[in-house]
């Protein structure tokens, strides 16, 4: 039955019907969403995250060991399985990194990931650290200016950072003083510019 050829009028009618049905469905969904949001807003305030005590302990250790004014922001990233996140400025990173690795309560010996992000107003590097014994994850964000992006290298602390920092330098242009071999790694040595930056202009735009 579905194979028979329909007349143009029948097709038009079907199309109109579908459009109307879709519009009705959209309206219904929007109404339901609005109702749910209203309900949620009236509901009880959010309960504290299970990782909040761990974040508090980290903040306390940092304040104690490094200084009480180096943390710019500390929060729980709920989207990412409630990982405790710290934001610090680049000038303080060199002092903070060894504490994270060697403090007996933290022992964050394994650097899982090092990403550079161009946030348009500033540049930042996100470090994901983990303790292999108690499996506790932490995320540290180190911010720096866009024009003169400098973050102290943590290669002396976690050797795995060596190539990762070279990659961030190569693609984003962040300098890492203290790095044993600060050269481009992916692109050729004579490349101009840093491709992952948001304001990077491609040499040949047709490609």
């Amino acid at each position: 039955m579905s194979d028979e050829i329909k007349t143009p009028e029948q097709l038009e009618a079907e199309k109109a019907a579908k459009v109307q049905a879709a519009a009705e469905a959209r309206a219904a969904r929007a109404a339901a969403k609005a109702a749910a949001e209203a309900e949620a807003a009236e509901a009880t305030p959010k309960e504290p995250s299970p990782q909040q005590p761990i974040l508090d302990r980290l903040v306390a250790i940092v304040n104690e060991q490094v200084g009480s004014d180096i943390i710019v922001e500390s929060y729980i990233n709920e989207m990412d399985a409630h990982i405790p996140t710290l934001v610090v400025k680049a000038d303080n990173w060199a002092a903070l990194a060894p504490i994270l690795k060697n403090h007996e309560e933290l022992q964050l010996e394994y650097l899982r990931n090092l990403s550079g992000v161009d946030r348009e107003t500033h540049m930042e590097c996100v470090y994901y650290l983990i303790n292999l014994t108690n499996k506790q994850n932490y995320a540290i964000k180190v911010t720096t200016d866009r024009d003169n992006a400098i973050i102290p290298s943590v290669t002396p602390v976690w050797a795995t950072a060596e190539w990762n920092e070279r990659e961030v330098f190569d693609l984003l242009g962040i300098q890492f003083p203290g790095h044993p071999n600060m050269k481009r790694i992916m692109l050729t040595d004579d490349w101009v510019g840093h491709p992952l930056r948001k304001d990077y202009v491609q040499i040949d735009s047709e490609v």
Partner: protein
Amino acid sequence: MLRTEELLLNVGPQHPSTHGVFRIVLKIDGEIIKEATPVIGYLHRGTEKLAENLNYTQIIPYTDRMDYVSAMTNNYALVNSVEKMMQLEIPERAEFLRLIVMELQRIASHLVWFGTYLLDIGAMSPFLYAFRDRETIINLFNELCGARLTYFYMRVGGVKWDAPEGWIEKVKNFLPEMRRNLDEYHELVSGNEIFLARVKGIGKYDAQTAINFGLSGANLRSTGVKWDLRKDQPYSIYDRFEFDVATHPDGDCWSRYVVRMEEIKQSIRILEQAVEQFPAEGEIMGKVPRVIRPAEGEVYAGIESPRGEIGVHIVSKGKAEPYRLKFRRPSFTNLQILEKLLVGENITNMVTILGGIDIVLGEVDG
């Protein structure tokens, strides 16, 4: 005294044993390496930059091509991160299908490693035996999703294709055959004097160095550290299955060989349980909005690929395209240790050590 000179040998991008376009510049004195400088980037394709203009489903084929030997785990790494961001529910059947293909992929990837490692060491035949088994797996994947190497199988919220009639039966029949063949490989290779002399004691490093260098996968477990993301940071439905984490205390190329062969065995074990518990029917795609638009935020999720921890760090600004997508590639991180291991070694051992780390250049360069 005789004056000797150091020779600058360029083990260039084109070389039969470098597993792809990888270059290492060696300064050798006779046959001993004095200095080794790896040069990478020959296969850099700018995937991370491209990802900033594509929506999440469009990025999945790019992940296939990064670690082309184990594409299914790459697919999963990306969709896992997006699903974590959006807190999506994945249907049972889809989870099972994902687990089955990922474990089959682990076996296939380790078989490639086994074959090529022995080819580097000089034995020609195990390569063909390993590929005989890999053919069976690849044919299973071909039936499932139409491709032999770059599958584009997983989607955000589930998988694209359902298992055809009789596919699970075929997987079930493959498992005892693979067990038998694995024993055959052990018989042929694991006791061979020449092979043992070539790999035992070569490329040794201890657990502290491994953790410091951020090694993962068999490279970390071969030093005795029992760290497997499937058990320690569980994802998908791995917590429902019983399997052991293979470790070995020595930290040399022989340990890495033992660990990887044991991993194949454990994968077979997981698969046996998975096909037993496979749901007879169910959806293969969850409730996913038509346009995948995660809320603003950032997430990092790592999974255990055959080479180590592959993770995806996504920064989203609430749009359909990611603001920043970063792949944490295991081969890139694992390769850093090569420079440290090579000083003072024989050139012949360079090939053995490089093979033991198990890299795929598509992944190293991204």
